[in-house]
């Protein structure tokens, strides 16, 4: 009997865990654990809620990204080698986007667990929240490396050069018009002092998150993290200009054309910026994700159905992007290469026509909405492997969303109504700001 009771107690302990646990544990205010018993290794990420659009005075020069490089390649007291090479058999990297900077490390399976590696990483990054060291020579060399990264990703790509120019013109001086890595000119003029100023402003315990996926006990991780992070001062964070809505003027549609010798297929981008009432950021993100799923679908009447399949104006690389750029401001853009034998003006007009149609019709039926919602819910149910949970949690936190609402994302999606979606369509029926941009071959070159 005692055995049966003990077994029942054991099963009672396991059953709710298997059925209800969200797949992660909040270890402390800033630290999350994604337990992974089947782990092929350990993954450690530090997310800083500051990126390129948080640079001083809203001028995006590439400083946030440069700082990411400096932290990963500098030699610091806690680790004499560069952080990029923290573990001989592991890997490390970083990425910077408009609103976050993320540092990540992977360590392969260890027979005796990962406590030593996690302790080393917490020690390193706790120290990086205070300061970082790098010699002037190393910082200068890394600036050249960043310039090469820029040339590889942007300068060598006509499409990237085009989008950089389009963004700048569309958003004017707003941070949303910036280019995360900067320009050749801004990279040439970046200084270590500017990187330090960005670090001083944004790298603080109250502006970072740690997400660790590993086979480690919660208590052990908590002890390691608490010890490393103890005493780190909180900072008052600066106001970021990225949260100031960009201007909609001039409201009249504009056209921008760019020619490039390496282009053979003309590319057309039509963008429209509009205002929308925003009471709940997370709920609005759910609405935008569902509208995005619809406009990128192949349903009858979708952009793809109309522009690619029926009118055959665009090649099948057509893409639609809907995003919030600041509180109460959203942008819808269509981008597609011209289909063979089609006049540029026809694609331009078809894209503008689709935006007008979307503004009027929106998502056409409750049945469409129900299908889109069900897909998200099914996808969430299927994404319960630790690597998938880890990845979703990191994206969530890097986007600046509060962790308290992560678990309720499925309910948030389920609560969205067609009226919510109609509000997005209605926003684009107002004048707003619209721009058509065309990347085309140099005249007479082909």
């Amino acid at each position, binding site marked *: 009997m005692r055995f049966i009771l003990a077994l029942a107690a054991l099963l009672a302990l396991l059953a709710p865990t298997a059925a209800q646990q969200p797949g992660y544990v909040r270890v402390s205010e800033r630290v999350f654990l994604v337990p992974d018993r089947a782990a092929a290794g350990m993954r450690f990420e530090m997310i800083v809620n500051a990126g390129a659009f948080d640079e001083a005075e809203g001028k995006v020069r590439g400083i946030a990204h440069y700082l990411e490089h400096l932290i990963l390649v500098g030699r610091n007291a806690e680790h004499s080698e560069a952080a990029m090479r923290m573990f001989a058999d592991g890997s490390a990297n970083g990425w910077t986007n408009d609103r976050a900077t993320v540092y990540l490390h992977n360590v392969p399976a260890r027979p005796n667990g990962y406590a030593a590696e996690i302790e080393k990483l917490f020690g390193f990054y706790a120290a990086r929240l205070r300061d970082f060291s790098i010699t002037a020579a190393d910082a200068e060399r890394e600036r050249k490396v960043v310039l090469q990264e820029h040339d590889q990703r942007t300068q*060598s790509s006509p499409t990237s050069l085009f989008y950089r120019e389009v963004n700048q013109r569309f958003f004017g001086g707003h941070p949303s018009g910036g280019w995360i890595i900067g320009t050749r000119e801004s990279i040439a003029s970046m200084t270590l002092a500017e990187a330090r100023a960005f670090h001083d402003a944004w790298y603080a315990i109250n502006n970072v998150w740690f997400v660790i996926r590993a086979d480690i006990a919660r208590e052990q991780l908590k002890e390691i993290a608490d010890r490393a992070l103890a005493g780190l001062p909180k900072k008052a964070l600066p106001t970021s200009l990225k949260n100031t809505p960009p201007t909609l003027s001039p409201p009249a549609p504009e056209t921008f054309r760019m020619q490039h010798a390496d282009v053979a297929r003309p590319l057309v981008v039509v963008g429209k910026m509009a205002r929308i009432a925003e009471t709940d950021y997370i709920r609005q993100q759910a609405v935008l994700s569902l509208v995005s799923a619809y406009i990128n679908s*192949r349903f009858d009447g979708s952009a793809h159905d109309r522009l690619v399949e029926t009118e055959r104006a665009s090649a099948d690389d057509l893409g639609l992007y809907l995003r919030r750029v600041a509180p109460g401001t959203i942008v819808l853009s269509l981008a597609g290469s011209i289909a063979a034998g089609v006049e540029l003006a026809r694609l331009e007009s078809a894209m503008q026509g689709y935006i007008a149609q979307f503004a009027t019709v929106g998502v056409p039926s409750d049945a469409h909405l129900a299908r889109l919602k069900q897909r998200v819910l099914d996808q969430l149910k299927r994404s319960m492997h630790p690597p998938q949970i880890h990845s979703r949690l990191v994206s969530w936190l890097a986007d600046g969303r509060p962790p308290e609402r992560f678990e309720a994302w499925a309910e948030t999606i389920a609560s969205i109504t067609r009226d919510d979606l109609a509000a997005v369509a209605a926003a684009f029926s107002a004048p707003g700001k619209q721009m058509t941009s065309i990347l085309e071959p140099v005249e007479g070159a082909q």
Partner: protein
Amino acid sequence: MIRLFSAILLALGLAATASAQGVRVENQTTPGGMPYLRIPMPNTQMQSIQLLWSDQGMQARDAKPGLPIAVSYLMGREPRGEKLGELLETLRDYQAGFHVSTSANANGISITIPPEHFASAMALIHKFIHDPALPQDRLDTYRRDVELRAIQALRQGDLQASQLRLRALMPDGPLRRYHLTDQKKLDGVTAADVRTWLGTLARDRLRIVTAGPMTAEALGSQLDTLVAPFPATWARLPAENTILRPDRRTIVLERPVPQTIIQAFGPAEIGPVFDPIRASMAVARLGGGSQGRLHAALRDRLGATYGVSVSIDSFSWMVHGVSLRTAVSPELAADALRALREEYARWWQEGVSEAEFAATRSSMIGNRRASRLQPGTVAINVINGIARGAPVDYYTAYDREVESITREEVNAYIKARFPKELGFIVVAPSAAGLGADCVIQRLEEAATCGL
């Protein structure tokens, strides 16, 4: 009592370990008599089915090297009498997907479906595969699009370097024409060619591997329905036999690029089955991202580049090369070339160090474990392995191989299978100071360098 309790806990622990690390492969036969391999993965949520036809028929396709492009495009379009958009959206509702492809060695169909929608999704996919509309007018429009894409891509320095590298490495023939980017590649390929190709997918050469939670009972009849319309037999085609050639020259294409692009290359004698493990262990810390020797030389010491990579290029299952690729600051291009030559020569001469070898082995085992968690990855790895001649217990054999190789064997392998010196293709604003053996200004002038 305590012992019994401990035994239960131990059993739970063992079960978890086995599901995480072990890949059990079962020989199965469908009710209709089609043999297949089933990999049970009971704790996963997607069922993967991989169909593969080993087809070493490059020569047969040589007249139409654009056929793979047409196959991939037209087989993804609508079945006869159906509307593409609604079918794709229904597959999205099911979270199901499929892909039809053809490559230098094989034709393949890859299917992924969650078990609860299996029958409905399979019925849709069956229509796509066995009753495709193959609209010629769509292919005609797509042809022009492919042409424009190729023209644009061929203006990029990186692809220009790759084109020259392929020309230097490979004698003219079916395999070279298959790999080269050519704006006219789709010319002469018709929807009828795709229909003919479909008729070559015969059951007698078909291998099937499944991985996921579904039982053999649930899979068997569905597999029969899927493969029944394929013809019973088709003539086996002769194997392609391309021999790569060493070319140790430095060839420069001068054009106004923002970075100097460097691709070093040479043939590597790597067998089809487990040889790639040795090759991967050999080059892992030559490239190897931030842990690699070339990264240290070109990025950390020179500040010349953002990245440098080393890869084993599989042009077919039997034809391999090694390549080093980077894009560097034009002012530092000569230094970068020198560093690449010196580091490669040192690697070839001295091999990998004990520390490099240990780190490589540890990370390879870790990566392999990670690849065993998703049914699609497991099924693809197993079917590609056995098609190349690996045993059915591919994963076990792989582990045995990784764990038993010694550093001495890897270093001997480097000297036996990798070239002592490499050739270099450079796309640069100027050839001055780069020690060029041949300089051209346009890709079309490649023949003047004997390419």
